[in-house]
């Protein structure tokens, strides 16, 4: 039985979500053992920002980051084994990023099968959105951030929120 984690938009926020491209990845979800959907439009983000703790360094950084962001849309998938998905599954997303308003600003890959691409959406001379497509053999993450985002500050938040959940069975390697 697949474990399905879905985080839906909150009912109190308007459902209309100005994503800048369609994150239609149902075929990927069908192959995934877990998936996470997050869609947060501007009013939800403004509401959530009120609950950020200005005394917490990470949350203060997030508060600053949110200025200018109009929406955050994330699809994240985990797979039981490598080979469960292929790059062709991401073509519906990539095809939309070949439009004139998008330009790819960086792409990296490693011999371990990790790939990541970042596209910037512009309107005139202004940056109005970012798309991130990141893949590993057993994981896919697709992100659209609408608005003006500081990627440097975003990267500083990388996975380090709050308290790590460490299983009690974890053992120290060396005796203290």
């Amino acid at each position, binding site marked *: 039985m697949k474990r399905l984690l879905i*985080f839906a938009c*909150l009912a*109190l*926020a308007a459902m209309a979500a100005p994503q800048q491209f369609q994150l239609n990845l149902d075929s990927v979800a069908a192959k995934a053992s877990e998936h*996470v959907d*997050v869609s*947060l439009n501007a009013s*939800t*983000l403004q*509401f*959530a*920002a*009120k*609950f*950020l703790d200005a005394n917490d360094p990470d949350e203060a950084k*997030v508060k600053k*980051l949110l200025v200018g962001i109009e929406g*955050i*849309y*994330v699809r*994240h998938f985990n797979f039981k084994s490598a080979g469960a998905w292929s790059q062709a599954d991401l073509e519906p997303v990539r095809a939309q990023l070949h439009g004139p308003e998008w330009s790819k600003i*960086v792409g*990296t890959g*490693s011999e371990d099968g*990790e790939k*990541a691409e*970042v596209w910037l959406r512009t309107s005139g001379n202004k940056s109005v959105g970012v798309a*991130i497509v*990141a893949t590993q053999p057993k994981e896919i*993450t697709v*992100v659209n*951030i609408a608005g003006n985002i500081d*990627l440097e500050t*975003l*990267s*500083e*938040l*990388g*996975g380090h*929120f*709050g308290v790590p959940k460490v299983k009690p069975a974890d053992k120290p390697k060396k005796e203290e």
Partner: protein
Amino acid sequence: MDWLEDELRRALAREDPPDGFAERVMARSARGPSGARRWLAAAAMVVVAAGAAGAWRQHQGYEAKREMMLALRLASTPINRIQSEVRGITQ
């Protein structure tokens, strides 16, 4: 055993922090917030005082915040990996 790995273990052996470190930590911790239990108790009192409707709105707010933090965490991890790769290439 490989000589370089031996030397790395020697070079990266644990070192004690400066004298008095533990005392400084204890002193600072005693000054700071007194722990999650007291924080949780204070938060519960705030919720009760604000009334049921306010409590629901607050719950929704924290839920929204949790989802937002999750979204940012998922977005920031690949950006961070890209930065590491780029720095590795330019080394």
